[in-house]
């Protein structure tokens, strides 16, 4: 049987960063095809190229053997390709039926919408999918799972032959996942090709006919599910050696700095208990959505929590806001530097000093310019922030240098416990190892660092001890030789 959609030698770069490297992949009619790989492997980019959201740099797309161009989502739609977005974009206070048939509503000759026909058409679609959604309900009144089903119904109404889903189950309950995969199977039986990205290997093995593994933008292999095992897939996802890129780990670990007990928020995360010790880097590993950032933000006082106690130096402290946490010596380096971490249209210099303005005060509460300049230039030197112009606006810096400014900001505050969330996301290789080195140097001064990272090589290469999170709970604590990607993936997925 020939392929329905065939991609050959697909290349895609963003700026200097090559995200996809001559990828060859084909999709059969009526198959469920899972794409797996670590974060940053290029899965989403590949899907967006198929869906017409990104343009490939080079390579060819063939639909039933004929070369086609898919340059916009509308192009994709016309070729029968539909992308169900990770972030859904239904108009909240329009009805489900209106959202499905947006701009394609049945009308009379004067352009007035024939409501009863519209609702009947939507009802037919839902009947066909065997889902129970009322066409007249407002899209905003449905939960995420049902909104996703509406998106799928929309795809079907467009006669989609290929439906692409980017992590469709990331925010669904178990029951909802079951019913979604029931629908996926029914679609397959009708000859629709379903391509989906997932991090959850158990699910992949349950529904996929074939699995494709991507790693660092390269296609490692496509295997029929029946002929492979989850350990083989994990090996294919991980397989590489990067240990030498990282600074050597600590030999000596000091006494406990911070004790966290029973941190929890509703049913989002619970029983989060751990200790941070002087001189170590503690890694928090897990999949996106495992509630690592959420629980650490709760610890920091920037997100709600319903339980949990924190002790610093054996003394219990109350953290109600980030102010309390900073006063106790805990700092948090955010994952989203654009919106939460840095003032984009202020200078590098002010961004660095903003959390600890007291340190640059002269007598009488006036800022002392020289104190600020001295401190800032020292930090810019040691972190190698380029260009070395303190009066540059942060938004004019590259991603790597912005990340260094963010780090510098918290170093200036001289924390005892530093939590860093995805410290090297969107950062090039050079800046990455400079940041790793800076973190390692930091802990040698006797502070404790907690690193949240979704890049397992980073966790393995950088951290002395690792907590693995899965669905809001700690499933394993690994240290020493146990810290391997295979172990982490095992506890994070299975």
């Amino acid at each position: 049987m020939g392929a329905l959609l065939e991609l050959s030698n697909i290349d895609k770069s963003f700026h200097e960063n090559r995200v996809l490297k001559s990828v060859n992949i084909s999709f059969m009619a009526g198959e469920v095809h899972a794409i797996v790989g670590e974060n940053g492997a290029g899965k989403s980019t590949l899907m967006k190229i198929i869906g017409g959201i990104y343009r490939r740099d080079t390579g060819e797309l063939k639909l039933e053997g004929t070369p086609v161009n898919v340059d916009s989502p509308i192009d994709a739609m016309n070729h029968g390709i539909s992308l169900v977005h990770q972030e859904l974009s239904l108009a909240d206070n329009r009805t489900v039926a209106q959202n499905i048939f947006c701009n394609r509503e049945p009308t009379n000759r004067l352009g007035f919408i024939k409501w009863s026909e519209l609702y009947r058409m939507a009802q037919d679609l839902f009947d066909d999918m065997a889902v129970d959604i009322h066409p007249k309900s407002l899209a905003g009144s449905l939960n995420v799972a049902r909104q996703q089903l509406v998106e799928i119904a929309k795809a079907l109404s467009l006669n989609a032959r290929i439906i692409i889903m980017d992590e469709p189950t990331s925010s669904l309950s178990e029951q909802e996942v079951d019913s979604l995969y029931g629908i996926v199977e029914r679609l397959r039986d009708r000859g629709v090709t379903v391509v989906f990205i997932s991090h959850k290997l158990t699910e992949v093995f349950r529904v996929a006919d074939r699995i494709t593994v991507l790693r660092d933008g390269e296609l490692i292999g496509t295997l029929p599910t029946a002929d492979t095992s989850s350990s083989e897939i994990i090996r294919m996802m991980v397989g590489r050696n990067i240990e030498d890129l990282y600074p050597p780990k600590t030999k000596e670990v000091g006494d406990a700095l911070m004790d966290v007990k029973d941190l929890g928020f509703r049913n989002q995360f619970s029983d989060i208990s751990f200790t941070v010790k002087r001189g170590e880097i503690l890694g928090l590993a897990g999949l996106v959505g495992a509630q690592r950032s959420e629980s650490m933000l709760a610890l920091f006082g920037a997100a709600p929590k319903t339980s949990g106690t924190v002790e610093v130096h054996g003394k219990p402290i109350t953290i109600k806001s980030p102010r309390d946490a900073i006063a106790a010596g805990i700092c948090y380096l955010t994952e989203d530097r654009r919106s939460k971490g840095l003032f984009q249209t202020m200078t590098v210099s002010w961004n660095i000093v903003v959390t600890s303005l007291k340190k640059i005060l002269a007598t009488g509460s006036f800022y002392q310019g020289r104190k600020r300049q001295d401190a800032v230039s020292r930090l810019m030197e040691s972190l190698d922030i380029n260009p070395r112009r303190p009066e540059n606006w942060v938004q004019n810096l590259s991603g790597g240098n912005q990340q260094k400014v963010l780090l510098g900001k918290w170093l200036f505050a001289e924390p005892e416990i530093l939590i860093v969330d995805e410290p090297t996301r969107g950062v090039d290789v050079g800046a990455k190892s400079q940041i790793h080195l800076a973190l390692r140097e930091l802990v040698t001064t006797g502070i404790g660092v907690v690193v949240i990272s979704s890049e397992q090589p980073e966790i393995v290469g950088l951290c002395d001890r690792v907590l693995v999170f899965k669905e809001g709970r700690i499933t394993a604590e690994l240290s020493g030789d146990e810290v391997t990607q295979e172990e982490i993936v095992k506890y994070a997925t299975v």
Partner: protein
Amino acid sequence: MKKLFYSIYNRLGFHSTALLGVLIGLSIIMRFRSPYFLTWFNFEILFMGFILEAIMAIGMTLVIISGGIDLSVSSVLPFSAILTGLLITAGVPVALAVGITLLAALSVGMINATLKIVLDVHPFIATLAMMLTVRGLAVAMSGGQSISGFPAEFAFLGQGYIFGIPVPILIFIILAVGLGTLLRHHKFFQQIYFIGYDSKAARVSGINVTLMNYFVFGLSSLLAGLAGIIAASQYGTAHNSFAIGAELKVIAAVVIGGTNIVRGGEGNMFGTVLGVLFMAIVFNAFAMSGIDTYWQEIVNGIMLLVAIFMVEAARKRQNRLALG
């Protein structure tokens, strides 16, 4: 009675029902303070006192649903009043003068939309600039003088009656019902909601976002132009000081009517009609209640605050229901 309430509630939704309740309550209170409040005569007075804003609110509703805002309406009004006045006093036939003026008003909306779409200027800024420019144009055209001396036939538009209803109110009713029905049931108008909610997603669904923007800003300016012509006819004169600050009253009426100003894609014409009535009553009620006129603006401000607070409470309640 209970049945009636629920059938109203189901048709109008929480917000409009609540607003309707407030309007009825306010009317009853006012009835006790003044026996003349609930008379057709008083209704005519109070509604005519807000009629120019009411007509502009119709266009503003569409603009705000589409995710925009139009501050320039309060300047298009005097500009149009003066332009018609100049044309008519120069001897141009009334119908032609009105036609030319409407075209001129429409062109302001075209510029607003162009600034938004082509130059990517936020509509707040774009229409603020147009508000200043067009008001300046009105001053320059009139030399700061009042323009008057219109023929009797022109007065009909602002002062005449048909079936015992003042012509401007009739125009408002026709526009509100007509555009309200289109907004609710017509495919073209329904697209305004989608571009207001998420213009990128709307574009992906094949909606011509540029065209829709030209349409809503054009319509808003056109209605402001119409309001200007009515003003000239009603007062028998045209002056550049007409409608100063009216844009904010118009926006307030639309927002009180439940149209979401923070995020587009939400609102309807019936709500705007209620919002307009609310504003008209608030601005009229105190004239009748005998409260010292020096205190009026303070009370008006507080009433607005209460109304807006109510709108937000209704929205929160709705969101909670949606989530629960």
